[in-house]
């Protein structure tokens, strides 16, 4: 019998065995534990584009932890934490430079901040799906967010199709540092509600497609309190549609991923995101995954390349690069070493953004567009 290029029979039989009733369908039967450490570095801004302040941008160290454990026959419990420590300067304003091009007013000395997020979710598993409820809390010295998340999945048509529904609500409090000193807002609130629905369909023996829609509504203080002049509407409605396609190629023993998302909001931003990855198995225990992501957006209606201090404070304006016209490419490479019940993952991603990849024409490229590298190493174990 030929086994070359065929998936491991042990893996195929083990996953098939999971649908035997003693192994309780969807419920995890093992505890899984994951840790990951990542280093995120933004490239510095060319000195001639910085009018005042530091040209050093963000560097973030991220440590993540996740554990999922079954409880009894029908319940599962998961717990996540993540801690980020960041340092670097961020743009506070954009003005016209001597050359007529936009120049940045950056924050001064390097700031060192941290963010801690903890989340816990409980799942109740049924024969044909699960329901989950989770809470999460994110804490920074000037920002606090609490969220409740409800999620559920239902299988249809002998598990050929799955409906996934998610609802979340987040309540955030913003308390900028040195508010009095710099005339920043003292304390503001923001509320976000989000609804996601997805339909996953098995197309044939080797491919599956998920279509999803998400709707999100924010209200409250949506501007950046650290910018010299940043006035935004106090409501934002967003919606996005997504497609995720997975196809297994038996001959080459690899899987192809293709993801697309269209996003639009009432700030006037819309964007396309296209991402593709190839998961190549090398023998039974190695996998290598090259990937490319393309992102392209149109600027918000009230985006201005230069802050306009003559406009009244009631008129919306922002020179945030994230609201400008630009696009970006991410090139990624990931390697996975798998052994019976553990795996080590290492990945490297390079992100480059530029106005020319954007969706509409605009005169000026924002000088604060980021280029970053992201390197991660992770360890997973099941027992």
């Amino acid at each position: 019998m030929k086994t070359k290029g065929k998936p491991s029979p042990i893996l195929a039989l083990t996953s098939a065995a999971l649908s035997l009733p003693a192994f309780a369908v969807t419920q995890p039967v093992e505890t899984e534990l994951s840790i990951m450490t990542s280093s995120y570095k933004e490239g510095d801004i060319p000195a001639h584009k910085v009018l005042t302040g530091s040209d050093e941008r963000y560097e973030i160290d991220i440590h993540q932890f996740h554990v999922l454990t079954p409880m009894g026959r029908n319940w599962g419990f998961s717990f996540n934490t993540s801690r980020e420590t960041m340092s670097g300067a961020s743009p506070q304003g954009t003005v016209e430079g001597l050359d007529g091009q936009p120049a940045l007013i950056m924050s001064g000395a390097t700031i060192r901040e941290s963010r801690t997020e903890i989340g816990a979710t409980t799942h109740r598993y049924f024969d044909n799906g699960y329901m989950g409820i989770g809470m999460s809390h994110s804490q920074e010295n000037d920002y606090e967010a609490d969220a409740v998340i409800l999620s559920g999945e239902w299988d249809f048509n002998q598990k050929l199709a799955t409906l996934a529904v998610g609802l979340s609500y987040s309540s955030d409090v913003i308390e900028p540092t040195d508010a009095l000193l710099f005339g920043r807002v003292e304390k503001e609130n923001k509320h976000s509600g989000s609804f996601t629905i997805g339909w996953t369909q098995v197309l044939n023996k080797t491919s599956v497609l998920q279509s999803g829609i998400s709707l999100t509504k924010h209200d409250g203080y949506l501007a950046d309190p650290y910018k010299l002049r940043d006035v935004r509407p106090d409501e934002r409605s967003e919606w996005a549609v997504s497609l995720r396609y997975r196809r297994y190629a038996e001959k080459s023993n690899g899987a192809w991923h293709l993801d697309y998302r269209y996003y639009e909001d009432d700030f006037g931003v819309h964007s396309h995101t296209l991402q593709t990855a190839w998961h190549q198995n090398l023998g039974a225990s190695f996998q290598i995954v090259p990937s490319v992501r393309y992102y392209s957006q149109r600027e918000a209606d009230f985006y201005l390349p230069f802050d306009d201090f003559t406009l009244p404070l009631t008129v919306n304006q922002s020179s945030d690069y994230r609201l400008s016209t630009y696009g970006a490419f991410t090139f990624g490479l990931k390697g996975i070493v798998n052994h019976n019940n553990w795996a080590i993952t290492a990945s490297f991603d390079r992100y480059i953004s530029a106005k020319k990849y954007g969706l509409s024409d605009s005169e000026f490229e924002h000088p604060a567009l980021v280029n970053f590298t992201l390197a991660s190493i992770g360890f997973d174990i099941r027992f």
Partner: protein
Amino acid sequence: MNRLILVMILLGLSSCQSVQPWERGALARPEMQLEVGKLGSALYRQVYFSKEASSGGSEVAGAGCGCN
């Protein structure tokens, strides 16, 4: 935009064969899942959420952060 939704619905509903559970070995493979690597996916979502204007799509949002 409406056309895109229509295409999505058509793709979702048509062209599906009946695949018997014992023929789903390939679909059950770890690299065939919608999300591969829980922490990695969460990290990418967080990074793109804080550096780009867009978010959402197929995953439920979690707690916000001061990064956006």
